[in-house]
């Protein structure tokens, strides 16, 4: 296979994908999309998903080291789920515990940050108090701060607090707190923007119809904010699973997460079984996002 064959194949596949995309857009839009708009959006999506697609393709490549296509195989997947699985030079037990750590960290931090973040979002939406504007503004700091800055500041803070509280030793509790710290802001922003779309008279109507403030939240505000709360929780969960930098700085020897483990193994070179593992993670995430979309759609109707 020469270079020319590769380029011709590449262009043909791209043209085919674009044709499918273009006709899908023409059919589904109320206002018919122009060629230019279709092409721009196609390019945007291509840039987003091409790397993932390459990883997925290479995970089926029957070659241990080469980046060129040798033949189709599922042996890298078999290796992950095999009895004596060794992925990227890592033992299966290590991998399993890292996966567990990642999920435990994501689930616990998401639950905590969703509760606190949703309350913060509601509080900022509903009440004007001295400093409410400042709080709303401060909320964006964890969003815009680079991960590395956040990680180092947490590390410093933990070193100080550790003198008084053993809770902040490197390890799972410290990681949960670190993740909650940046997740809260995302949840609060999503919930607040959802609440902003609701008619303020709805709360008054509930109060007018004999609901106490608590009952108003229970029967009116919360059900209506739920899509926002769910979206915020999903975002927080994804951010936690995805996070490398902050986890890396706050983890202990017993609390390695999947991104940390993969990073460690990749230092020794990318192996196809890592590609397979990454593909599995992507597919699982996609299923999760898809399910939450269906949930939200059902709620709307």
């Amino acid at each position, binding site marked *: 296979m020469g270079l020319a064959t590769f380029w011709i194949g590449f262009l043909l596949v791209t043209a085919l994908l674009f044709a499918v995309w273009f006709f899908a857009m023409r059919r589904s839009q109320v206002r018919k999309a122009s060629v230019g708009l279709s092409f721009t959006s196609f390019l945007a999506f291509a840039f987003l998903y091409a790397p993932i697609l390459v990883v997925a393709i290479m995970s089926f490549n029957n070659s241990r080291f080469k980046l060129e296509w040798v033949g189709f195989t599922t042996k890298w997947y078999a290796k992950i789920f095999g009895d004596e699985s060794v992925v990227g030079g890592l033992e299966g037990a290590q991998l399993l515990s890292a996966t567990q750590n990642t999920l435990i960290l994501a689930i616990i931090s998401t639950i905590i940050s969703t509760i606190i973040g949703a309350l913060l979002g509601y509080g900022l939406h509903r009440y004007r108090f001295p400093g409410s504007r400042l709080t709303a503004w401060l909320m964006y700091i964890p969003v815009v701060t680079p991960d590395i800055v956040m990680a180092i500041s947490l590390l410093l803070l933990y070193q100080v607090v550790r003198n008084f509280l053993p809770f902040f030793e490197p390890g799972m509790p410290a990681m949960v707190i670190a993740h909650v710290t940046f997740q809260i802001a995302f949840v609060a922003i999503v919930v607040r923007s959802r609440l902003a779309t609701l*008619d303020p*008279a*709805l709360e*008054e*109507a*509930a*109060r*007018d*119809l*004999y*609901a*106490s403030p608590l*009952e108003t939240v229970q*029967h*009116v505000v919360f*059900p*209506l904010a739920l899509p926002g709360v769910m979206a915020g929780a999903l975002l927080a969960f994804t951010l936690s699973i995805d996070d490398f930098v902050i986890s890396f700085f706050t983890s202990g020897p017993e609390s390695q997460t999947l991104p940390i483990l993969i990073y460690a193994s990749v230092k020794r070179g990318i192996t196809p079984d890592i590609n397979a593992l990454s593909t599995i993670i992507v597919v699982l995430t996609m299923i999760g996002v898809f399910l939450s979309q269906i949930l939200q759609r059902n*709620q709307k109707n």
Partner: protein
Amino acid sequence: MDLNIGQRRKRVLEESVDVHFKDIRKAFGDVEVLKGINLEIRRGEFFSLLGPSGCGKTTLLRILAGFEFADSGAVLLRGQDVAPLPPNQRSVNTVFQNYALFPHMTVADNVAFGLRMRKVPSAEVKTKVQNALEMVEISAFAERRPAQLSGGQRQRVALARAIVNEPQVLLLDEPLSALDRKLRVNLQVELMRLQARLGLTFIFVTHDQEEALTMSDRMAVMNKGVIEQLGGVQEMYERPANAFVAKFLGSSNLLEGTVCGEARVKTQLGELMVNDFLPAIGQDVLLSIRPEKIQLSRTQLSQQNTVAVSVTDDIYQGATGAYRVRTNSQLELEVNTMNGGVQDSDFAIEDELFAHLPANLIVVLAGSTRLDQIGEVH
């Protein structure tokens, strides 16, 4: 003995007052929106608060509902001060301007909400909801969501959701303003019937003078945080107290003048006979006459209160006709006529006519006596 009877009568009268606003004042920042409102609303009446936007009428309603607090003054609901009660403990219900139906609940659940919050037994909730839905004729939509209803249907749900609680007073905050004209007129009639049937006190907030005139027993015209006039609908239309009411409630021709004799006022139209009560000779007055009270004719029917005019505008309005006429002194008058009525009413532009202003239909206004001191009324 006499005193006793007097006291008893007074108490009965007081008891029949449902809502009593006592010197209510309210400011938002530097803006005073209510400047000492005193108002009694009687049990079972259809009462309208009418005024331009920003006059304070909605704020007054929200103070009664419990969504705002007065800076000073008191609100008595059947004699009880409501100040310490939160909105959910006041026996008033509101029909909101944009309905504020709960979008995640069915029509039936929306209507049942208030009853459920008050822990009414579920069997009772069911029958009451059914009755309320029937009363506003939307039983067929009980299981739909608000998003699946038209504007008029949503309005009915909002109404059912409020009346099902059998409140002492029903507050309606411009509930018809989002509907188209034909539907609005139909719902006006239905609201009046419903009110008569339930015997509830309705407090209706609106900026639409026609709506207020059609529906109310009594009304208050508000402007810039004060009540300009309070009274029965007919009384207020026929005898507006001041220039604001005269212009806001319907339209009026206003004339500056000076009292020049017994029941005589000197104006730009010449000397007019006025039957209304006049101040002493030499005093300035402002007179008002409704456009439909002025009689136009081709021949001079009377010597008294009649001026020669020429038609400047002829506005065809279907059932009625509107004319602008100008006197020799360049004063413009607005005149309305019925289409196809008894009198000759088919005039054209530049016709030379006589306008007759009946002495008993001219009203003397209180307040400012100069036109240039009266702001625009919207």
